[in-house]
């Protein structure tokens, strides 16, 4: 690829204008997802080779205007202003041109090289809307190319024009949007002040002037650094007075109104809407889905369906994966002669990687479900339906999406909080997600309810545990939002996009991207964590025990007993030695150290060990208990943990309840803590959270234990 034949273009447009479909149609599979520098906003980038050019396409987050309101919009603007792509492609939703044009007027002000991709032309024609493209081109001062991302039509024409614009072979003269005369005078005055400033060369002076008049905080902070500010500030105050005196308004309002006036004019001149009015599919669907009476039941049904999809469909795949890793481990065992190597490979790496992969089917299914809801347009409606309830606890309607994701796994759920604009809303939501009982905690409940409750009660107990998690979460949110996170919560002003039937490929693509992100983030963290936990549950080793194991093994081998008997005795021996080793290891000692603390909750040091190792991932609680509770079991048959703990005198129904509550509420797994830190950016909230969750877990477990003992 020769130099100069590379073009970078950016797609800018309103949310739901079909920008992402166009991006997919243009770049196909050549995409990657990263983050914009320094922020947790996803950056979708792809490329296409066309007529000897390599065109890099950046899909900017959807935005209604270039006055930043959310992190996504800030990113979009910063990218356009600072990174200056060669060509900006403004994607417009053809059927709803009027409100899409606001962003276009702002691109005109920015004086970037841009062109318009008039998307959804198929729908425009279907609806009988007639757009005079030639005339509109003159008014907007840019090329307009009709396309349909869905039908993949007009894409070549778009690419041809992108190349032409990048080569400056533009035939259409840029147009300028003029404001009300008095305001225009203020703009001119400030533009003149700014235009000979070397430090501000990077920016278009007129754009800076307009933004200052719009009270744009970011631009204020930028210009304030320079000496010219003194004069600019005077001019701004004068403009404010003029607007007040002549229009009884503010420059900010006047500017917006003038933009809209321009748009109205353009619409009148160039667009003919059909006279007849038809209720759309969206109207009909919403009559049911957002109905006063049916709205909530529909919402619950949707959430329930997502769960069914995730767990019912996921369970067999999960089982198969478990089996696969089990088989892999047993085949690998004889191949590794070295004891330590074998242990690292099987108990460390396979257990670790397996632990991540086993959850992948559930997570992929969950993401497919959520992507479908998002792409279809229901997600915004769900926020609409549930906002009142969430708002009562200081949260936002949109917080519920991460919350339900949390029932699957906290990691993607924490990542999903990125849709929340207000930092305090976001932090509060992140802090309550681990209380939503995740999939990895389920095996613990299954074991304990199975051992201590009749099957018909077990389900209710489990439901109670989930419910307790939600209650503690909401309570925590309420506390946080009325104390340390007390600040303006995010206003609820939200578009409910028209329903669209999502394409399978885009849903799968979204799910794939999210799954990869999960694998990358969680994979490295969980793998690391599991290896550490492996190390602390195996070291230091008690040499005497190892020697004893060898000696006893030799004794059994040489004894006169039959093969079956020998095998049984050998198994029993290994259990004993392994359990003793675990007790001797760091994890075991930690268990014993914390025993006095957890004694009031009905836990002994063995449960303590399980709680420590459970920090790797929660289902490890079960496997660790499996190892420890094998002490003293002499039958050597397959160990049924359920019946062991049932007959263990240290274990009672009260202990089981207390343990479930504790597992539900105490520290999330280390991977979750790691992701929390990454998303929040600081350790302090994570540390505070850890202390808080441990305290809540302790207090509630204590209460549950005492009450249960009393009732027994």
């Amino acid at each position: 690829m020769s130099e100069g034949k590379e073009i970078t273009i950016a797609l800018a447009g309103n949310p739901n204008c079909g920008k992402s479909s166009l991006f997919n149609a243009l770049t196909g599979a050549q995409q990657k997802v990263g983050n914009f520098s320094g922020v947790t906003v996803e950056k979708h980038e792809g490329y296409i080779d066309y007529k000897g050019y390599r065109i890099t396409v950046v899909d900017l987050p959807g935005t209604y205007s270039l006055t930043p309101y959310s992190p996504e919009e800030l990113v979009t603007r910063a990218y356009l202003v600072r990174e200056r792509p060669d060509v900006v492609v403004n994607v417009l939703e053809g059927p709803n041109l009027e409100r899409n044009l606001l962003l276009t007027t702002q691109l005109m002000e920015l004086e970037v090289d841009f062109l318009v991709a008039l998307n959804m032309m198929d729908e425009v024609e279907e609806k009988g809307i007639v757009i005079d493209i030639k005339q509109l081109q003159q008014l907007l001062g840019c090329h307009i190319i009709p396309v349909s991302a869905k039908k993949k039509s007009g894409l070549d024409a778009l690419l041809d024009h992108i190349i032409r614009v990048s080569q400056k072979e533009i035939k259409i003269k840029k147009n300028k949007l003029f404001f009300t005369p008095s305001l225009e005078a203020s703009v001119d005055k400030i533009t003149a002040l700014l235009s000979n400033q070397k430090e501000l060369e990077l920016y278009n002076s007129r754009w800076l002037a307009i933004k200052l008049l719009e009270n744009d905080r970011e631009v204020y902070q930028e210009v304030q650094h320079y000496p010219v500010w003194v004069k600019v500030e005077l001019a701004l105050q004068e403009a404010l007075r003029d607007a007040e005196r002549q229009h009884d308004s503010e420059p900010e309002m006047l500017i917006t109104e003038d933009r809209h006036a321009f748009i109205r004019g353009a619409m009148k001149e160039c667009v003919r809407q059909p006279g007849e009015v038809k209720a759309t599919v969206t109207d009909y669907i919403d009559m049911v889905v957002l109905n006063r009476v049916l709205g909530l039941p529909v919402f619950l049904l949707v959430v329930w369906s997502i769960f069914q999809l995730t767990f019912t469909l996921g369970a067999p795949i999960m089982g198969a994966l478990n089996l696969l890793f089990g088989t892999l481990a047993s085949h690998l065992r004889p191949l590794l002669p070295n004891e330590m190597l074998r242990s690292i490979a099987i108990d460390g790496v396979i257990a670790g990687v397996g632990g991540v992969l086993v959850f992948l089917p559930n997570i992929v299914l969950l993401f497919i479900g959520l992507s479908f809801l998002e792409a279809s347009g229901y997600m915004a409606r769900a926020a609409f339906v549930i906002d009142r309830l969430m708002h009562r606890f200081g949260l936002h309607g949109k917080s519920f999406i991460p919350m339900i994701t949390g029932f699957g796994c906290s990691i993607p759920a924490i990542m999903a909080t990125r849709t929340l604009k207000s930092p305090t809303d976001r932090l509060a939501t992140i802090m309550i997600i681990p209380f939503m009982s995740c999939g990895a905690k389920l095996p613990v409940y299954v074991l304990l309810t199975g051992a201590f409750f009749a099957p018909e009660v077990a389900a209710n107990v489990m439901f109670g545990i989930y419910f307790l998690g939600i209650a503690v979460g909401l309570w925590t949110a309420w506390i946080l939002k009325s104390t340390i996170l007390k600040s303006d919560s995010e206003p609820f002003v939200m578009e409910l996009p028209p329903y669209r039937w999502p394409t399978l490929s885009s849903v799968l693509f979204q799910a794939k991207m999210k799954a990869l992100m999960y694998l990358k983030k969680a994979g490295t963290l969980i793998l690391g964590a599991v290896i550490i936990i492996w190390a602390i549950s195996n070291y230091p080793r008690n040499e005497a025990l190892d020697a004893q194991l060898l000696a006893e093994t030799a004794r059994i081998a040489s004894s006169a007993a039959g093969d079956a008997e020998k095998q049984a005795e050998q198994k029993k021996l290994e259990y004993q030695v392994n359990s003793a080793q675990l007790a001797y290891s760091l994890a075991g000692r930690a268990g014993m150290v914390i025993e006095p603390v957890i004694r009031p909750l009905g836990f002994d040091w063995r449960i303590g060990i399980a709680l420590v190792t459970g920090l790797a991932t929660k289902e490890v609680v079960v496997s660790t208990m499996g190892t420890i509770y094998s002490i003293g079991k002499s039958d050597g048959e397959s160990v049924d943990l359920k019946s062991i703990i049932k007959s263990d005198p240290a274990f009672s129904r009260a202990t089981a309840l207390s343990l479930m509550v504790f597992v539900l509420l105490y520290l999330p797994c280390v991977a979750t803590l790691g992701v929390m830190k990454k998303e929040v950016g600081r350790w302090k909230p994570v540390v505070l959270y850890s202390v808080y969750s441990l305290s809540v877990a302790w207090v509630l477990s204590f209460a549950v234990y005492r009450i249960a003992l009393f009732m027994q």
Partner: protein
Amino acid sequence: MRLSELQVGDRAEVTALKSESAVRRRIMDMGLIKGTSFKVLRVAPLGDPIEIFFKGLYLALRKNEAEGVLVRKVGEPSELVGQQELEEPLLKSGGRV
């Protein structure tokens, strides 16, 4: 009168935006400015937020946010007849009757 005081089915026109600046900015960016006519479509099942429709956009906002939007009612829904109806930009953009 305030947007928050309108009933489901009411049509109205924005006369002024008095919300706190970030909210006002947002509302204006969505295209709801002085002079925009809209229709109140529904109230959420739990009583808040409300949904309005204008320029092909379905917008949900909390009553709290709607308080800052001052409006003038455009005729009672029952008296909506011929002429006035045709002038409604609402109807031109594929909305509902």
